[in-house]
């Protein structure tokens, strides 16, 4: 088993333990326990919950670290897409500018023809 698989199996076991220790059936059993036994059970539940939080955080942190490692390439992708967009925008601007320029030229030509 890999480290991740061991962690996953441990986490599943801890979550199941937490569920059992907070279940109605367990609660009914604790009603018959001594004060000391009940306190020890409480401390065990705290340790279980602590371990759950730690393992869950570790799992999320591992994924987060891999996502962060991807960010440079993702940023490059955004830049490349923006460059292509800029080319299309430049074409639009150029077409509009050429059209306007030719309108002016057309008016000048008409004036010259009349003169």
């Amino acid at each position, binding site marked *: 088993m890999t480290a991740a698989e061991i962690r996953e199996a441990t986490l599943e076991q801890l*979550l199941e333990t*937490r*569920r059992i220790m*907070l*279940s*109605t059936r367990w*609660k*009914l059993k*604790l009603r018959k326990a001594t004060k000391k036994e*009940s*306190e020890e*059970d*409480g*401390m065990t*539940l*705290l340790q279980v*919950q*602590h371990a759950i*939080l*730690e393992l*869950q*955080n570790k*799992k*999320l*942190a591992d*994924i*987060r670290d*891999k*996502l*962060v490692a*991807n*960010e440079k*390439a*993702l*940023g*490059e*992708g*955004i830049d*490349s*897409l*923006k460059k*292509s*967009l800029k*080319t*299309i925008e430049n*074409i*639009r601007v150029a*077409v*509009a500018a*050429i*059209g306007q320029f*030719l*309108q002016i*030229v*057309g008016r000048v*030509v008409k004036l010259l023809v009349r003169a």
Partner: protein
Amino acid sequence: MQQPFAMNALRRSLLLLSLTLLAACGTAPPSQFADFAKLGTALTDSTPPLLDAAFAEAVAADSLVLTDVRERVEDPDTRLTALEEHDKLLSDRLGIYSDLTRHSQLLRSYFVTLGMLADTSGDSGLGDGAKGIVDQLQAINPKLAGASLGDVDVASFVKAAAPAAIGVFRSIALQRELEARAKTIAGELDLQQATLAAIAAQMRADVLLKLQKERQDRVELPFVDPGTLPADWPDRRLKGLRPPITLQAVDAAARASDSLRISFIALTEGGGAGGSLAQLLQDVSTVVTLVEALKKPAP
């Protein structure tokens, strides 16, 4: 007879257009990229509220445990140490969620920019502009007036050809982007799927714990202990058996992120992503609906 310069330029452009059209064959149409990008944007928009809900459930489950333990552990130092340690772990988790939220916003930027490149809605305006140029040229040089290419007058042809040429450029640019970054984006979508699956698993455990406690207090202990059952006990029992909306939302998001990954693979294979995009649309719509419901205050 020497051809007018404008006609020569137009003929050269047509040849170039034919060559680029051939080059663009085998790529998915920009519209599929646009759909993929739109759905990807919607899914990344859902990530922050899902993370908020996941954190709230994590704190609720931890509070449930601490409250239960407090009834049995009376020492103040032990109680305080437990609270401080668990607060620290939950703060660490909030930091991780903040990083995941920030990253989802970067991925969102990618999808938005991809969508803009794939958006052909403004291209017909470009055709009008190009036709305007030809109209002006014809007005300046009357010899161009009446010029035609086959049965089509030049101005009308250019009006149609300009958006087509831009469309081809878009397809090629999108295909180039896929080729350059297919591995990165595929890896990214794999990780997004892993993130949502991990969040879903954590939330499921936390929400089920909360439901277990509610069921215990409102259904099981009143039933088990001596005394009269509350009048609304059957309704309480029914409510306790239904899955809450937070769980449905996060499960839907995990499914949608898997659909997103499959759609991206279909796009990169060049055969088009029609079927997988339809599934993705359904999954993302489910997520968006559920996340909207999450944002509404509980009755």
